[in-house]
């Protein structure tokens, strides 16, 4: 399995923090409220390790926005929040009433989809900028599911024992703080390609 050394982790987390910082300012502009986004940690893990990581004690289902990216490396990226937290975010952002998870309307789903889209595009855009490469991004889709279904979905999206570049993400809006994850499901080859880009970036900055 590919592991990231400390320098690589720091560099990636810095790049992603630039990305989510931009996403936060876009989101703040949309909802006219101050939103903060941060990526405190970046690791690599196996898809199966995700099972217990994505949910919390409040909900056993997750809200996931997924988007496929291709370029020097291919990845299916996902922004995943525990379901209740996702609904909290969207309620705070669009000021909607308290619908239960079953009653969530198109309105909330569309909003969640767009929020995920903004965050994921910003992350990829930051990677592309810093690696000076071209990355093509498809359209996002949103779904509520269990972590298990998500893992099955990941297995189909990336064949050959996919790895996950896992980012913890914390979002805060009007005094509420919400924890979630950004996942990049990648093949071993793609992750190696990403690490190669990263090393190139570090070299270019005289850091390795």
């Amino acid at each position, binding site marked *: 399995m590919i592991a990231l050394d400390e320098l690589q982790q720091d560099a990636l987390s810095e790049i992603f923090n630039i990305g989510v910082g931009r996403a936060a300012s876009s989101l703040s502009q949309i909802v006219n409220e101050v939103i903060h986004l941060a990526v405190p940690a970046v690791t690599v893990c196996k898809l199966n390790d995700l099972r217990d990581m994505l949910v919390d004690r409040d909900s056993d289902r997750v809200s996931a926005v997924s988007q496929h990216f291709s370029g020097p490396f291919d990845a299916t990226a996902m922004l995943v929040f525990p379901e209740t937290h996702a609904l909290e975010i969207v309620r705070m952002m669009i000021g909607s009433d308290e619908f239960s998870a079953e009653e969530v*309307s198109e309105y909330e789903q*569309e*909003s969640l989809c767009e929020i995920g889209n903004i965050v994921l595009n910003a992350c990829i855009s930051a990677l592309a900028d810093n690696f000076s490469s071209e*990355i093509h*991004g*498809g*359209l*996002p889709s949103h779904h509520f599911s269990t972590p298990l279904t998500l893992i099955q979905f990941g297995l189909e999206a990336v064949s050959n024992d996919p790895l996950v570049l896992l980012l913890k993400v914390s979002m805060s809006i009007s005094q509420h703080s919400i924890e979630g994850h950004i996942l990049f499901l990648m093949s071993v080859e793609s992750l190696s390609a990403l690490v190669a880009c990263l090393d190139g970036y570090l070299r270019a900055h005289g850091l390795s």
Partner: protein
Amino acid sequence: MSGDTTPSGSPPPLADQIDIGLVQLDSQGRVTLWNRWMAVHSGFAAADVLGRSFKDIYPAIAGQRLGIAIESAICHRLSSVVSSALNTVNLALYETPTNRFENRPMQVNVMVSARRDEAGGHGCLLQVFDVTASVRREALLRERLSDLRQARAALDHQARELEVVNQELAQFAYIASHDMRQPLRTIIGLLRLIEKEIGTTLTPDAREMFDLVTGGAKRMDAMIVGLLEYSRADSRLEGGRVALAPLVKDALLNLDHAIAQADARVAVSGDEGQEVLGDPHALGRVLLNLLDNAIKYRSLDRVPEIEIGWRSEADGCLVWIKDNGRGIDAADHDRAFLIFQRLSPQGEMAEGFGIGLSVVKKIVERLGGRIWVVSASGQGCTFFVTLPQPAAG
């Protein structure tokens, strides 16, 4: 418009047949495709916009999420969704030409996908979806939901206020009747002493007046006791399974003396094992009151016959107490259960102050049951009471 220009014989392009807006932009942001849907809803014919910069056609999108999404697709090859839930999409599209004149724009969601254009450069494709109807539906739904919540909150508030008022009233009735009784007891006691002192020396007229005063005081005392009882019927009731037959036996035992005095015949019929749900003391008071009434309001020209029975029915245990007494006029059936409504003329044989039945009704309703009477004047009456019973099995 563009769709109409298709030469007859050849099918119109696919893009013109679908029911969403399609716009393709080249790497310079110029329009290279503008389907029929866009022409119909924007008011711009394809010929008017092809080759023009999209930003020039819609300057309002600059700096907005849609403008940024287009830029992101062309410059960074990243696709985006722009929903009307989070954004105002300033594309000035209208459902019908009339809407345009009334300035009621269509609500749209736009998908912006990065796409290679014909010249090999990076352009993008816009798919525009009309979501006006669903936005309206959602708004209506939210409005209704908020109305409902407000109505419910108002009802809850009223219920709480009523509860408080009820408690205060019960408290008031209790305190008033309790405090009123004190001086009355003094009056009755003193009347008794006075009678001892001068009872034998009274003239017949004075004696009659004295007896009227004493009787009035005693009646008032009994009425206050009744009021106290009525206000106590509001106190907490115990729940639980209670066997009915022993309660009936107890009530009859209590009335042994009255039954003997009235020379009444009492028949009891019902399943010995029948159970009901409620407070045993309160249930006992209900039975005692109803049986007591059956004896009290007997008819003088016949032997009192009283029947008490019960059976289990689908919606509870039905109890009936039937007599052959004076009966109640159909017009008075509802009035019979009101406080201080005495149906027999004053001075007639029966005592009572019109409190008993109102207490009975209050208790039965608090136990979750119902009470009603079937009767005609002079022909006796039957009181029916339903009481909750334990679920079968």
